[in-house]
């Protein structure tokens, strides 16, 4: 799809979230909920003593899973699959550049994901929550965050060109 058209579509979904719910979109919060619930299941005293985990455990309507972000992310799974299936893009594969091994790419994906998870929690949100949603409502911290995401990406690109190019 034309990137501007996809962007307008995405923007209208975001606007719908603002109008209906008074909040934007998110993603990393759902990952955090799952982490908090697992830590709580394994070591309840440890999780309950930690303000970060506790925030997610006390979130939701009666259960941490009954939260906006959990339901939204389940929707993202479904919506992504519908679009991919309609376009014939559902394929079991490892995305990588022509000079990169699949194993190496998987390793870097785990490393990058770890940095992403950590960075998103430092910033209080990821590209969806801080970038898109915070950007559209002109949050100062969100715009600072967004500029730094691009700075970080471009700063690392030279060193990782073997992975992608």
């Amino acid at each position, binding site marked *: 799809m034309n990137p501007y058209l996809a962007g307008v579509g995405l923007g209208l979904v975001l606007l719908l979230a603002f109008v209906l719910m008074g909040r934007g979109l998110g993603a990393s919060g759902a990952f955090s909920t799952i982490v908090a619930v697992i830590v709580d299941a394994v070591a309840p005293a440890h999780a309950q003593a930690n303000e970060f985990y506790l925030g997610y455990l006390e979130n939701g309507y009666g259960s941490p899973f009954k939260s906006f972000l959990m339901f*939204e992310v389940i929707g993202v799974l479904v919506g992504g699959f519908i679009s991919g299936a309609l376009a014939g893009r559902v394929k079991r594969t490892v995305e990588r550049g022509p000079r990169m091994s699949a194993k190496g790419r998987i390793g870097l994906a785990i490393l990058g994901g*770890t940095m992403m998870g950590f960075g998103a929690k430092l910033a209080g949100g990821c590209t969806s929550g801080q970038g898109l949603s915070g950007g559209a409502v002109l949050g100062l911290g969100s715009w600072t965050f967004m500029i730094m995401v691009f700075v970080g990406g471009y700063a690392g690109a030279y060193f990782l060109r073997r992975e992608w190019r």
Partner: protein
Amino acid sequence: MIAPFYKYGLFGDEVSLILAAVIGVGFGFFLERAGFGSSRKLAAQFYFTDMAVFKVMFSAIVTAMLGLFYLSWAGLVDISMVYVSPTYLLPQLIGGLVLGLGFIVGGYCPGTSVVGISTGRLDAVAFGGGVFSGIFVYGELYPWLADFVKSTSMGRVTLDSWLGVDVGMVVFAVVVMAVLGFWGATTVERKLARREAEA
């Protein structure tokens, strides 16, 4: 009747969860349509060969921003009830930088990795696993990080209030910057395509 409807009690918690799922379906659909189920497409942004990340992100931001501010101007949305994530300047600066590096190393962000997972990308599955471990590391270090992540706290502050100008001026400036950015991005893409064709 005035929006945001949930905050004005038009519907309750259970309905809000159904709406969350519907909103999520739309979110996932357009992310995949944009090609963002593919880490190669996302990473291409940082090699200037395909600037779709910038184009999609900023056309989405401009669309939602204009919609919100026109609706607010028309008195249909109470903007003071719309959540603006609070500013913690330094943590967001450092967090953004770490996240940006994670983006080019890992090839996804949390939202796009969910779309990658649903369309069979094994690197997205690995990335998602990484996100869990990164959040776990953060959670375990939280007692030592708490002071830092709560520092440089400025509360609910928007660009217009920070600059001390009217919100309309900021909205206008963002639109102008986005359009200039789209033009610049396309110009760079074309230049690189020509250079690669010659090589």
